[in-house]
């Protein structure tokens, strides 16, 4: 894949097809090495007797604060979650801040407090970082970049290559909450709803699955930008099989559904910050679902579909009367600056 776009567009940051082209077609080839080329959520390196998972992330959400969270919280949870779905408990985080001149100290203090609280909740320390300031008019208040690392649990054998036909697709919570919340919080649309971002650390949920399923847990992902559809398409491409989703079983809050209907958006393309996707062996699915539903944050967990042999590398959605459609990766950027 070659990156032929002449300039960078918003779509390249949306987490969908354009983002993938940028990473796979330009960035990865120029920096290429064995670990990078795997393009996992976290990069896993052998470390002593075990494995070290490392991840970097950045946060450019607008507005900085929204119901259910803020940029500081996203920064911690988003990083911790990339580690969690790789089967790692977080050891530590580093955070860099790019601040806009004119940002009020009160706002910065509030974000740091939110970040500290999120770190405490996630059981991780921020051990270092950097700060830069740019002119007024750049950085929209602040941007945060993070680097996180943790040791991978030896029981976690997670790879798209482990996924096989017959495996079940589980989601740990309702979809679309975060993206729609942030969109409404911008106040540019004349829409009101009682909705909150679902941002939370997923470590407990991820490890509940590792405990319950062992090697029956094949793969996990936190579906952020690009949504569930994009994450499942990446899985389908990587494992070579088909993913069949029973559309009516995907947990969806009525407010998210309503907002998506009004705006013409597909909830499966909307970013999430507090749920995970897991592929589990059919014999582990019952226990997996039960343990998720008993874990805080997993109350709405559901079995939403299965892996099939064909059509290869395709995600399909099926409705209650048997009509099917393909569920494609996100194209374009319907909701910019969500994470």
């Amino acid at each position, binding site marked *: 894949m070659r990156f032929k776009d002449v*300039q*960078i*567009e*918003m*779509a390249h940051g949306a987490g969908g*097809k*354009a983002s993938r*082209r940028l990473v796979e077609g330009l960035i990865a080839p120029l920096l290429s090495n064995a670990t990078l080329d795997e393009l996992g959520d976290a990069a896993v390196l052998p470390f002593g007797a075990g494995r070290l998972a490392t991840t970097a992330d950045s946060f450019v959400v607008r507005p900085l604060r929204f119901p259910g969270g803020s940029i500081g919280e996203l920064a911690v949870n988003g990083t911790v979650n990339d580690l969690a779905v790789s089967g790692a408990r977080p050891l530590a985080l580093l955070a860099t801040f790019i601040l806009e001149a004119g940002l009020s100290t009160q706002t910065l203090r509030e974000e740091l407090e939110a970040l500290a609280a999120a770190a405490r909740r996630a059981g991780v320390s921020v051990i270092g970082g950097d700060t830069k300031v740019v002119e007024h008019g750049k950085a929209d208040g602040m941007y945060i970049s993070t680097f996180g690392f943790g040791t991978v649990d030896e029981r976690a054998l997670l790879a798209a290559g482990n996924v096989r036909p017959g495996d079940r697709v589980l989601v740990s919570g309702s979809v679309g909450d975060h993206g729609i919340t942030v969109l409404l919080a911008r106040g540019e*649309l004349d829409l009101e709803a009682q909705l909150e971002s679902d941002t939370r650390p997923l470590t407990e949920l991820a490890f509940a699955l590792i405990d319950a399923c062992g090697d029956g847990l094949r793969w996990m992902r936190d579906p952020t930008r690009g949504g569930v559809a994009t994450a499942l398409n990446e899985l389908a491409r990587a494992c070579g099989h088909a993913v069949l989703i029973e559309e009516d079983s995907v947990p969806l809050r*009525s407010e998210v*559904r*309503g907002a998506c*209907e009004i*705006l*013409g958006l597909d909830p499966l393309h909307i970013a999430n910050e507090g749920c995970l996707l897991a592929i589990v062996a059919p014999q582990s699915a019952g226990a997996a679902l039960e343990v998720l539903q008993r874990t805080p944050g997993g109350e709405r967990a559901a079995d939403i579909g299965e892996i099939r042999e064909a*059509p*290869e590398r*395709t*995600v*399909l959605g*099926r*409705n*209650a*009367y*048997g*009509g*099917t*459609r*393909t569920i*494609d990766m996100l*194209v*374009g950027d*319907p909701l910019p600056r969500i994470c």
Partner: protein
Amino acid sequence: MKYVDEFRDPPVIVRLARELAHIVEPGRTYRIMEVCGGHTHAIYRHGLRDILPPSIELIHGPGCPVCVLPTGRVDDGLAIVANPGTILTCFGDMMRVPGSLGTPLEHKARGADIRMVYSPLDALRIAQENPQHHVSFFAIGFETTAPSTALTLLRARELGLTNFSVFCNHVTIVPAIRAILESPDMRLDGFIGPGHVSTVSGCRPYEFVPRDYGKPLVVSGFEPVDILEGVLMVLRQLRAGEAKVENQYRRIVPWDGNPAALRAIFSVFELRPYFEWRGLGFISQSALKIRSEFAQWDAEARFELPGVRVTDPKAAQCGEVLKGVLKPAQCKLFGRECNPEHPVGALMVSSEGACAAYYRYVHHADPVFA
């Protein structure tokens, strides 16, 4: 969701599917055109082709206002925002439509102030909030959307706004249906009539279809139950040797349309003598222009627009797909040179475009593309 979920009720859908399976005559094929792009999307989105008997073929019609807009008009819209101090507002659909020098989104990335809105009233609000800028609204749509643009223009006049204009590209559906019926390569048995256009225009404007061409036309809603019932009603007419206009979408479409909406349209707009449609050529009396009394809110009166006729690339078969002569996947560029990220024509990016619908909801599972 009320008025949505009941019309997606699986037992009812199964019953309709069974009725359809019983009513089709063995050995006969049926070609029914759904005029409206919204129907095309709904059909693919809900997987209705899995439920319809294989002898019923649904042909995609030209009812996609973004798709039928010639590239030259997109360029004209982009020329408006090239004027310093101008803000161009448009629906999300328009943002990825290719003009000669890129899409509005690409122009925006290069610094043009182009903003997506969900309503012409949003554009009005942006004008009120930015008195130092001129705000222009790129109006597209059939009769469904024209009344909203009309009310917005009336409101602009009420407010005495001097920094607001509309670039009007509204088109009307009847000339497009007539052009399809006049087309020699079309063999159609009946029509699924546009649902939301009809809330404004009512059902009478389609009476020429059974009267002059002997084909049934059933105005239908957009949920699976609506579309299946609409198809069933067409087939029942065919079986009975009848041809008339029927209203499946009774809960929403009044037979005589919406008088207030029609009044709004006529007070603000008049018909252009002719207008170019992608794929259908120049059609007379098929598009709306802003009346001279509203000239100061008419972007075509306020700005010098290039007005250049831009022909589609030779290899693109947009016109044939719009007329239903070709299915999206039969266009040589489909999925190759033309895809949603790099579209050659608007059909691949519009929320009502047949190519966009096929690409998004079907083509990955189509063995032809494996």
